[in-house]
């Protein structure tokens, strides 16, 4: 394309501003139609201490093993006769009370791995602990059931293994405008307008051109579709809140995206846990509350399911530096407007019956949660993605 052509095209692009919004809405009908369900996945990286998140305030073992770290009953937000929320999670208490939060306890898998590295891989690939998979579970979902890269978006600068399939990948978007501007570099645009389609094959160079085309198209689509939406919702001033704000902007603009992925880092609390965890849970809960309000204001909350996990929980017994070491089974939060079993999905495991390393034993395999979400929420055949049949749960 010559420069004149380029200018013409860019005016055309900017004229999209002036198309009445109902026409734009019509374009996105597929994604806007009622019942277009989205999944938002949040990873609390580093291994969040589940025992100090959902606190067993009547449990003697808990207080015995954590003389310094245990949180007193009066400082928790009571959920049941046995369990209370960390006080930083006040905004989540509201969701709990209105029936939009389900807490699944004791989630894990057999022979747990306590390396961040490996445990994250296991959660992201949905593998067995002794099995090495090179594709993520969302990536395999894309392989099977999607057309476009932007069907799964990670709100970050680079793509996690979770979103990498065998053949297809999601796309990482931290700032849609930046990504768009990169993809619209005039020179790269010109290359895209000139390359010769006929000689592209599946082999390496052809693959590079095809990925370049797909990336440009997704970057443009995401930016053009989402830029018209301006949120009136207030978000706290955290990086994580900003990620959720971007996610809400994407969801509310009717982007044809099924899965969103974000993470909040820093939960590896070996030392001075109380302050660190308090700060992080506060960031998580306040950001999440704004996010939920934002979705509610646009009537998209009911079609959004938010799954929060951490690669492992922490040791029941505290360590000598006012912290906790890597553990195994942990709790998972499910937030949504259409929960079947809101509240506490199951009881906390018996702290008398720990594994050989002094960690909580798992009761629910995390892949049962994935299977449930895939089948009942994204409405696809979960066994094709997980390669095994897992028993469904009843939270949705």
């Amino acid at each position, binding site marked *: 394309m*010559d*420069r004149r052509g380029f200018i013409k095209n860019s005016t055309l692009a900017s004229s999209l501003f002036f198309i009445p919004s109902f026409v734009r809405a019509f374009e996105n009908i597929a994604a806007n139609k009622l019942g277009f369900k989205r999944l938002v996945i949040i990873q609390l990286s580093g291994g969040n201490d589940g025992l100090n998140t959902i606190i067993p305030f009547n449990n003697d073992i808990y207080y015995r093993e954590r003389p310094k770290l245990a949180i007193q009953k009066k400082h928790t937000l009571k959920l049941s006769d046995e369990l209370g929320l960390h006080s930083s999670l006040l905004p989540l208490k509201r969701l709990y009370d209105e029936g939009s939060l389900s807490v699944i306890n004791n989630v894990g898998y057999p022979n747990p791995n306590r390396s961040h590295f490996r445990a994250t891989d296991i959660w992201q690939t949905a593998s067995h602990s002794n099995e090495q998979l090179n594709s993520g579970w969302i990536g395999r979902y894309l392989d099977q059931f999607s057309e476009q890269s932007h069907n799964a978006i990670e709100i970050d600068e680079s*793509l996690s293994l979770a979103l990498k399939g065998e053949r297809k990948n999601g*796309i990482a978007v931290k700032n849609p405008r930046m990504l768009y501007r990169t993809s619209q570099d005039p020179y790269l645009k*010109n290359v895209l*307008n000139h390359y010769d389609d006929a000689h592209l094959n599946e*082999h*390496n160079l052809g693959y590079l051109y095809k*990925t370049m085309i797909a990336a440009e198209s997704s970057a443009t689509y995401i930016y053009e579709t989402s830029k018209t939406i301006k949120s009136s919702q207030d978000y706290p001033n955290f990086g994580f809140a900003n990620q959720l704000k971007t996610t809400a902007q994407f969801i509310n603009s009717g982007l044809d995206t099924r899965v969103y992925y974000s993470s909040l880092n820093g939960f590896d609390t070996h030392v001075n846990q109380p302050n660190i965890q308090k700060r992080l849970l506060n960031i998580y809960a306040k950001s999440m509350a704004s996010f939920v309000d934002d979705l509610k204001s646009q009537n998209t909350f009911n079609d959004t399911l938010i799954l929060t996990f951490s690669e492992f929980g922490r040791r029941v017994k505290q360590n000598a530096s006012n912290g906790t070491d890597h553990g195994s089974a942990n709790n998972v939060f499910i937030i949504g407007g259409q929960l079947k079993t809101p509240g506490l999905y199951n009881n906390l495991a018996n702290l008398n019956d720990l594994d050989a390393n002094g960690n909580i034993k798992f009761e629910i395999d995390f892949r049962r949660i994935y299977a449930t979400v895939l089948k009942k929420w994204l409405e696809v055949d979960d066994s094709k993605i997980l390669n095994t049949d897992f028993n469904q749960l009843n939270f949705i």
Partner: protein
Amino acid sequence: MKYKHVQHLYWRAGFGLTPKQTETLSKLDKTTVVKNLCIESKQFTPLLVDTSELEGINPQIIFKNPKKRKSFFDKSIEKVKALNYEWIERLAHPNELLREKMTLFWANHFVCFDKNIFHVQQFNNTLREHALGDFRDFVKAISKEAAMIKYLNLKQNKKQEPNENFARELLELFTLGMGHYKEEDIQESARAFTGYDFEFNGEFRLKTKQHDYGFKTFFGRMGRYNGDDIIDMILEQEQCARFISEKIYRYFVNDKINSEHIELMVNQFYPNYNIDELMYFVFTSDWFYNEINIGTKIKSPIEYLVGIQQIVPFQFKIPHDVLKVQKLLGQVLLYPPNVSGWKGGQNWIDNNTIMLRLKLPSVFLSNAYISTHEKGDFSDSFKREFKKRGIKNKVFDTIPEWDIFNRYFKEISFDNMSENLLLCPINEGTNQYLNDLSRISKSDFCVQLMSLPEYQMC
């Protein structure tokens, strides 16, 4: 030796070269060039960072005092990052080119991760030392490395409670490949590696009380085997030579295996397992220079980064950016994704990394500007507009050394620039577009060529 063949050899055995170097080498015959390449790598120069502030620490204190322990590891992790920077620097300016490229290869074969700088550094130099040596000694040395003993749980492998992690990966990933052993072989060989441990300084130590001296049945034979015996028995299998040859072929020759070539390599490699001789054999083989093998591999992020440096050297103003760019491109040295390493090939490329790779040369070298100035066009409104706007949110701040590039390419015509920078033929449509662009500035043209999908190939 053909110009193109010199480039091919040096992209696979190194990270590309300057026009002058290619020119000089192309006047020699193939055998001489490859021989020199091997001779230049006879030396071994360890890669070391300054660890003086961490030396002389009493390990007992570290293990008993959690605060001191944390402080040690915080510092150590910074040193591991420093080693990463040094490694990248070494790759850009190596004395022993082939040895360094092989080290990179082996780091993705004997995959290991650790946070203790002394152990990381020692492991890295063991890779470097054995990179062109005897594969048998190599495997044995790796099995006794502190970092590996931790990484694959040899430390937890005890007579009463064997841990099979290392034994499994030894057979599956390091020597034979899946399907060439039985579960029983894993269990029995795990017993031979019981009691493996190390001193704080990284030296190997066998805890005799935890070593199982009993009889083991391995590959149908019975004896009181120790770890080294097991490795010897594995290497008796020709399959081991085949497994390694295939991996080397995929890395240095082609993603797709040619089984005839593999058998030739196996004949060369087995039973002596001399890596240096194997590489000499590959690089002097006619088939290595087949069209189908030239410019058909996707560069790894490290090859891509170091390759740009060979043409236009540049420095990051913020040292940490070296790590950041590796992370964005999907390959951070010393931080492998898992025990099977980086998959490579098309797996390097996703929607984000392709855009990044196309945009980065301009970000590094020309303030993110890629010229679209066409022939006969006297005003470059885009460039003016671009300069007026200035650079906001620049991702990487660099100092490019265009003087050096200008010296390298002084004698090179515009037409010859593409053959020097690109190893594969340019897509026809793209090429037509390139032909319409003005040919005034070689630096502009260099950035244009580096911003193509074709530049990703080697």
